[in-house]
C-alpha cells in the first residue's frame, strides 16, 4: 500500500509518500496563512511529482501544528509521535530524537518499537527555534543555509547571554557594532541554542543513539554545538526536515510493527 504523510508545521509544510520501505518522494513548501490550503497544495504537488493518482494512496496521516486542518487526512497524529516513528523507521536503534522546527523544539525519548517513552517541549518561548534563526539571519545578513558552514570557521564563539529572541537580536546587533566577526556571533548563537536544548533534554535524559530532525537539523553548526554540549554523537539524515511527514506515512501504513 502507498501511504502519505502531511506535516503542516508553523513555517513549512511537508508531504511524503511511502510504499513499503521505499520513500517515493517528498516536498517542502511554506505553510503561509492558510494551513488547509497549504496541505491541499503540497499534497497535489507531491502526487504530480511522483506521478501517482490520489486514488492510489491508501491512507493519509496528517501531523504538525496544522494537523487538524488537513480535512482529507484519514487521521491526525501529533508530531511528537510522528517524529519518533520517522526516526525509528530510518534507524530502529535511535533512542532520542531532537526535533527543532519553526517554533517548537522537542526532545523525544523512544522506547522499543518506536513508541514515545517521554518527551519535553518548549512552552511559551520560541527562542532557539527556526524562527529565532530566521530573525538572526536577517540581523546579520547571512542566509540561513550558510549558518552552519560559516559558524564552523569560528575560533572563539562570542558569548550570547540572552535567550529571548528579541533581546538576543539586540545583543547580536551590539556585537556587530563592536566589530565582532560574523562567524563568531553565529557560533555563539549556536552555543546558546545548544545550552537551551540541553537543559530541556536534562529533564528527560538523553540516551544514545541520538538523531536530530526538523528543518533546523540542516544547520550543521548547530548540530556540532549540540554534540559538544550534550557530549553525544548526533546523526542527521537527508530526510531530517521531512521526518515528521515520514513518520506520519509510516503510521498511515499501519504502524511500526508491520514495517
Amino acid at each position, binding site marked *: 500500500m502507498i501511504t502519505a504523510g502531511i506535516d503542516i508545521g508553523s513555517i513549512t509544510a511537508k508531504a511524503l509518500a511511502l510504499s513499503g520501505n521505499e520513500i517515493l518522494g517528498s516536498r517542502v513548501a511554506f505553510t503561509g496563512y492558510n494551513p488547509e490550503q497549504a496541505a491541499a497544495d503540497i499534497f497535489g504537488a507531491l502526487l504530480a511529482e511522483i506521478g501517482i493518482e490520489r486514488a492510489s494512496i491508501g491512507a493519509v496521516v496528517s501531523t504538525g501544528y496544522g494537523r487538524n486542518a488537513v480535512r482529507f487526512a484519514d487521521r491526525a497524529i501529533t508530531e511528537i*509521535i510522528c517524529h519518533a516513528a520517522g526516526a525509528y523507521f530510518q534507524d530502529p536503534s535511535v533512542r532520542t530524537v531532537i526535533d527543532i522546527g519553526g517554533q517548537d523544539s522537542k526532545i523525544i525519548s523512544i522506547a522499543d518499537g518506536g513508541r514515545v517513552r517521554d518527551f519535553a517541549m518548549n512552552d*511559551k518561548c520560541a527562542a532557539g527555534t527556526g524562527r529565532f534563526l530566521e530573525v538572526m539571519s536577517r540581523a546579520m545578513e547571512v542566509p540561513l543555509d550558510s549558518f552552519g558552514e560559516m559558524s564552523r570557521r569560528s575560533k572563539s564563539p562570542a558569548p550570547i547571554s540572552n535567550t529571548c529572541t528579541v533581546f538576543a537580536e539586540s545583543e547580536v546587533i551590539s556585537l556587530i557594532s563592536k566589530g565582532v566577526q560574523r562567524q563568531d556571533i553565529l557560533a555563539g548563537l549556536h552555543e546558546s541554542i545548544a545550552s537551551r536544548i540541553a537543559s530541556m533534554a536534562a529533564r528527560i535524559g538523553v540516551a544514545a543513539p541520538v538523531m536530530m530532525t526538523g528543518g533546523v537539523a540542516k544547520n550543521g553548526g548547530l548540530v556540532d554545538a549540540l554534540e559538544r554540549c550534550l557530549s553525544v554523537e548526533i546523526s542527521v539524515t537527508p530526510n531530517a526536515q521531512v521526518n515528521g511527514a515520514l513518520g506520519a506515512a509510516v503510521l498511515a501504513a499501519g504502524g511500526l510493527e508491520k514495517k
Partner: protein
Amino acid sequence: MEAMEFLRGVAADPHAYARKWKSSGGGRVVGYFCTYTPDELIRAAGCLPFRIFGSGGNMTRADAHLQSYSCSLVRGGLEEALSGRLDFLDATVFPHTCDSIQRLSDIWRLSACVPLHFDVVLPVKLNTASAGRYMVDVFKKFRSDLEGATGTGIDAEKISEEIRNSNRMKRILAGIYEARSADPLSISGGDVYSLIKSSMVMDRGEFIGLAEEVLAGLGPGASAGAGSLKRIVLAGGICSHPDVYSILERSGAHVVWDELCTGTRYFEGEISEKGDPVESLAARYMDRIVCPAKHSDIYARGKNIVRIARERKADGVIFILLKFCDPHAFDYPYMKESLDAGGIPSILLEIEEKLPPEGQLLTRLETFVSTL
C-alpha cells in the same frame, strides 16, 4: 439541568454573584486566597467567603508591586484588587502559606483599599501536638478578630451549624467525584470545575441546594464508550482552566479524580461535629492532606498521589503547576518519582493563569494520552 447552568454562570463570573449577594442584603464579603482559610468561621459571622482566583485579563497594575517571578495567581489577584474589580470586598483573609501570599498580604494591606484585613498565622508543621494546640489558638484569635471587626458575636452554635453545612457540602462534592469516577462521561470536567469554583464563592446553603440537584441528576450506570477513555488524575494547586478539561476530552481522556486545592484537598476530610467546634475545625485543618506550603510526613503527598492513582485506576497523572510556584515545583520531583516507582505515567504542564496557545497544549496532551 437548571442548577448546573446556574453554577456555570457563577463560575464564569463570580464577581457578579458576590455583588448580587451583597446588594440583596447579604452582608459583608470576605476575600480569601487559600483553602487553609477557615471559611466556616467567616460564614458563622454572617459573611460570604469569596475565593479570589486571580485575573483572567492582562496585567497592567500588579507588576508595579510584584516581581515577574511571582506566580500569576498572586499577580492576578493583586491586579483584580488594584483595578477596582474587587471593590465589593469588605475584608480579605491571608492564611500563612507560601512566601508570595505572605508578601502579597503586606502589599494588599497598603494598596488594595479593602477596609478590613486579617492575617491568620497558621503553623507550618502540621504533625505535632504543639502545632495542634497552636492551631486552635490561631483559630480562636481569628474568631475574636472577626467578632471585633464586624461587631457580630460568633457563638459556638453558629460555628457548629456551619460545620454541619460544610460536611454536607463535602459529602455532596465527594458524591459527585465518586459518580464521575464510576462513569467518567456522567459529568464533564468543565462542570466539575464549575461546581468546585462556585462552592468557594457562594452562599453555602444555596450551593448545597443546587449541588444536590446536580448529584441527583447524575444517576447510576456507566455510559457507553466510557471504557475506552483514558483515566486521568490531575495534581497540583489551583486549576482554574476549564479549557484543560475540554482539550483532554478531545484527546480521548477524562479526569476521574484530582489532587488539587480546587478539588479534593478542599473537600476531603469531614469536620467532627462533636466537642468544641473551634477545636474540631482546627483538627480538620491539621489532618487534611497538606499543601506543599505545609509540612506533615515528608512523603505524605507522594503517598497520597500514588494512593489516588491506584484507587481510581488512573492510566496517568497530569501535574498542572503554576509557573513560579516554588512550593509545588519543589515537591514535584519526588512526587513524580513516587509515581514512577509505582509504574504510573505522568506529565508536567507548567502554566500560567492564561493557558499557552491551544495547539501547543493539545499536542502535549494528545501525545501523553496516546502513550498511555
